[in-house]
Structure formats: structure tokens, C-alpha cells
């Protein structure tokens, strides 16, 4: 037996050690979230609760604190996701199937607008919404969120649609199906997983969006969870950290679960729709 460890093993151990250091560092804030939510006397530090309890959860599970904001989030993000996905699927179809002089400039414009800093247009959007009376309405907020997320959704959707073979579609054409029948009955069912990825990704981005509802919604009963979370920071100090953690956990769980659903397709070579594959 050779005494020194083979180089390969040494390298693997070193890599493991390096990754574990990073993992622990990244895990500390997450650990606080979980531990504080179970601790009736939570502080700012990570520490195991003296006696784990669900008190924090029962304290925040009320209409005013949790259910109304979550419902608002669901209405705003769900509605906006639906609109985005429908518009993106429709737009992707001709972009993927037909050729025209303006298809490429159109796609380039779409791609360009995927990366404009949306934060920067929020001040004029606010001004615009005041003038056309969309300010402080949930559907107005949903419309803007849908538009903001649409470029990336169109791009993703087009890439997925490009992957659907045309043979079946051509059979449908020959049978005299119209374009929307073809899209609805042939293409979309074939790209089911891709459609799910676009919808879920869009929903996750909207669910986590803070700035848009923060700017466009004013009345407390309309605020989604991303903004209402600030209510835990009263004006007079004294923050119930345990309850803040419990609420954060409730608010984050849906997107984490949804991400797990699509992670296999998002990871690996896919890396966000091939959009960023350099």
C-alpha cells in the first residue's frame, strides 16, 4: 500500500473542504430563519430555541397578517403569470415558425428589453399610473408585472417551441387545422414541460418582486406579502423577530417548492432557457 494518498483523493478532499466552508457560511442566515421561527424569544442571533414552539406561526396566521397579503400575492402574481404565459405562447408561435424581415429585429428588441433595469422605470410608471388611474389597483400592478416579465418569457417560450418537431404540426395543417388549433392542440401539449418552466419561473420572479408593488400599491388591504412584511418593523423599535421569521418562512415556501419542481430543467445545460448560454 502506498502511504501518501493518491492525488485524486487529496484533490477531492480539498474540494469538499472548500465547498463545505462556503456552504456553512451561506447556511448561517438560513439557519437563523428556521431557528428563530421556532423560538418564542428569538433574537438577532442564530441560536437553538430553548423550547421549540409553534407560537410564532400561530401568532402570524391571522387574516390581517398572513392570509390577506398571501391572497393578494396570489391574485396579483397568478393573474400576471397567466397573462404573461398566454401572451408569450402566442407571440412565440410565429417567431418560432415563420420567417420574416422583422422577426430578427423583434427578437433582438425583446432580448434587449429582458435586461433593462426595470427599477429605473418605476418612477415614470408611478407617474403614468396616477394619470390613467391605475395606481393602487391590483390589476394595474399585475398588468405592469406581466409586461415586465414578458420579454424573458417570450424568449424562453420561443426557445422551447423551436425544440418541438414540425412533422406533427404539418399533419395538422394538411388536415385543415387553423393556426390556433395547431398551437393549442399540437404544439403546446408537446411542450408541456417547457410551458411549466416558463409559467413557474415567471411566477417565482413576480412573487419575490418587492419594488413594483411597493411603488404601485398604497392601501394596506391590497398589499402583497412582499410589501406587507415591512409591517413587522413598527415605527417604534421592538420587532418581533420570531414572528418575522415565521412569516418569512411562510412567504418563501411556495417559491422554494416551485423551484424544486423545475430545478432539474433549469440546471445543467439548460441554464435559464439557453438564453444565457455563451
Amino acid at each position, binding site marked *: 500500500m502506498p502511504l501518501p494518498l493518491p492525488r485524486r483523493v487529496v484533490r477531492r478532499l480539498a474540494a469538499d473542504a472548500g465547498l463545505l466552508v462556503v456552504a456553512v457560511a451561506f447556511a448561517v442566515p438560513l439557519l437563523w430563519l428556521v431557528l428563530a421561527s421556532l423560538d418564542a424569544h428569538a433574537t438577532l442571533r442564530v441560536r437553538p430555541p430553548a423550547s421549540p414552539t409553534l407560537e410564532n406561526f400561530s401568532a402570524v396566521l391571522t387574516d390581517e397578517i398572513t392570509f390577506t397579503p398571501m391572497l393578494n400575492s396570489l391574485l396579483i402574481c397568478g393573474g400576471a403569470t397567466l397573462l404573461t404565459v398566454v401572451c408569450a405562447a402566442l407571440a412565440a408561435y410565429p417567431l418560432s415558425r415563420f420567417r*420574416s424581415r422583422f422577426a430578427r429585429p423583434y427578437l433582438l428588441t425583446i432580448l*434587449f*428589453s429582458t435586461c433593462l433595469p426595470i427599477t429605473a422605470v418605476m418612477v415614470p410608471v408611478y407617474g403614468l399610473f396616477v394619470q390613467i388611474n391605475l395606481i393602487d389597483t391590483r390589476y394595474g400592478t399585475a398588468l405592469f408585472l406581466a409586461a415586465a416579465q414578458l420579454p424573458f418569457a417570450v424568449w424562453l417560450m420561443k426557445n422551447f417551441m423551436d425544440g418541438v418537431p414540425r412533422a406533427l404540426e404539418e399533419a395538422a395543417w394538411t388536415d385543415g387545422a387553423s393556426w390556433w388549433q395547431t398551437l393549442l392542440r399540437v404544439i403546446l401539449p408537446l411542450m408541456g414541460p417547457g410551458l411549466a418552466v416558463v409559467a413557474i419561473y415567471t411566477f417565482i420572479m413576480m412573487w419575490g418582486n418587492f419594488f413594483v408593488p411597493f411603488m404601485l400599491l398604497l392601501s394596506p388591504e391590497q398589499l402583497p406579502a412582499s410589501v406587507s412584511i415591512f409591517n413587522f418593523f413598527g415605527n417604534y423599535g421592538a420587532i418581533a423577530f420570531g414572528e418575522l421569521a415565521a412569516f418569512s418562512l411562510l412567504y418563501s415556501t411556495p417559491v422554494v417548492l416551485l423551484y424544486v419542481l423545475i430545478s432539474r430543467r433549469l440546471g445543467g445545460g439548460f441554464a435559464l432557457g439557453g438564453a444565457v448560454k455563451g
Partner: protein
Amino acid sequence: MTGTVAGARTAARARTPRAVPVRTRLLRWSPLLPATVLLLLFLAGPIAYCVYLAFTDTQLTGQESASFVGLANFRHAFGDPGFRNAVVLTLVFTVVSSILGQNTLGLALAGLMRRASRPVRVLTGAVVITAWVLPEIVAGFLLYTFFERRGTLNAVLSWLHLPTQNWLFTLPILAVSFANVWRGTAFSMLIYSAALSDIPPEVTESAEVDGAGGLRRLWHITLPMIRRSIGTNLMLNTLQTLSVFGLIWAMTRGGPGNRSQTLPVFMYDQAFLKSLIGYGTAVALLLLLVGAVFAAGWLRLMREEV
């Protein structure tokens, strides 16, 4: 994926003869309409309005009519110490968190993951990605508790007998930069993992046989081979970082004073807390222009894909 795109494109070319009647052509492209209308109304509209507002003295406290003031807002901005402070802080925030932080750490993680054992790889991936998937505002609160004077970082430091300090007060911009690294590294990690797995193993192996050491291999082989991914990643990271608002708002609200007030926070502060919509919009327009430059750079890299 590129293969199928090219395939679809040739097929499309073959299918579309020159003489498609105008009516058919309009009908074919009609599905584009809803998306285009939505984008024009809610994205192009505000951008145009932004350009208009930036040249007026509009204020929030409804004065009778706003008047056209030409470049006054921009002149004001360049002479305003608050604005210059925001520009410098935005640069620090972008360089530290996006270019040095997320990009380098993401590449390092992706590289280590190729050598590490499976359980460690899966665990690290899960933790780093969870940080990324959490809503921005939750991430902000979590890192607030981490950096706060009575928070976990100081607890760890005093346990190690190292000096503690009130991070959010002494080094607020570094605290928010680290928060952004925590939140954004997963994206770089995913991009680089994909890029590294595209490098054929023979290339690395033959370099190893030739006796090239780790660092030289990285510099002469790995980095050149993934240079397009590096470009893509830097552009997208920078764009993402330029528009961070919620994270900073949750942690410091731009404070103390204005010591973590990056451009988006400055813009919000001027437009809504100081009621200078015209001025705030001028700042927004500058931010948008910087973003557009980066977006155009990214588009150049992407041109072959469309």
C-alpha cells in the same frame, strides 16, 4: 439547442416561399399582437414618459403645470454631491458584489463542484441556490440580522476573540455588497457549471499530461474556453446588480445618512421622499442608459444565438 434552432430556421426558410399573400402574412403574425401591445403600453410607454419627465421640473406635490427645463436636471445631478455619492457607491456595490464577489465565487464553486464528492456537491448546491430563490426582501431581512450589531456575525467574531463592530453603521456598503453576493452567487455558479461541463475532458487531461499546473491550466485553457460565458455572466450580473433596491432597502434604507445609497435608492429618495419627480426621473434615465449600454454589450455576445 443551437442545432434545433438552426434546423427550424432552415425549415422555415424552405416553407415560406416569396409569394405569401399579404392577408395570410398578417394573419400569421397576428398572435404577436397581445404581447406587443402589452409591451408598448407598459414598457415602451413608461420609458418614453421617462425621457419626457427627465427634462421637466415635475414635482410630486401637484403644482399646476410642470415646465420644460431642458438639461437643468442633469446639470443639477452632476453638481449634486448626493448624486456623485450615489454613483460612487453604485460602482463600489457593482464591482465588489457582482464582478469580484458573485462572478469569482460562482466560478470557484463551479470548479470545485467538478472535483468534490457527490453529497458535498449536492448539499452546497442546495444551500447556495436556496439563498438565490428566496424572495429579495426575505434575503434582505436575513442578512440584516446577520450583520446587525447584536447579530450572528458579531457573535461568531467574539467567539473567535476577534474585534466586533457595528457593520451596518461602519461599513454599510460592504455589508449590502456581501448580502448581494450571498443572494446572487447561485446564478453565476449555474452558468459556470454549464460552461465547464461543456469543456471536453480530453483537453484538460492532455494539458495535465503535459505537466501544466492548476493555475496555468486555469489561465491558459479553462478561462479562454469559457470566455463567452464569462462575458455573459458579467453583463447579466452587472445589470441585475444595477437595479437592486429591495435588498438595500430592507437592510439599511440607504443609510446611515446616505452611506449605502446606490442610484436606485437615491432615485427613489429624490422622487418620492423629496418629491422631485423630474429630478428623480433624470437619475432614472441615466441608470437606464447605463443599463442599455450593458444590455447592448450582452446582445453583441448573443447575436449568433438569435
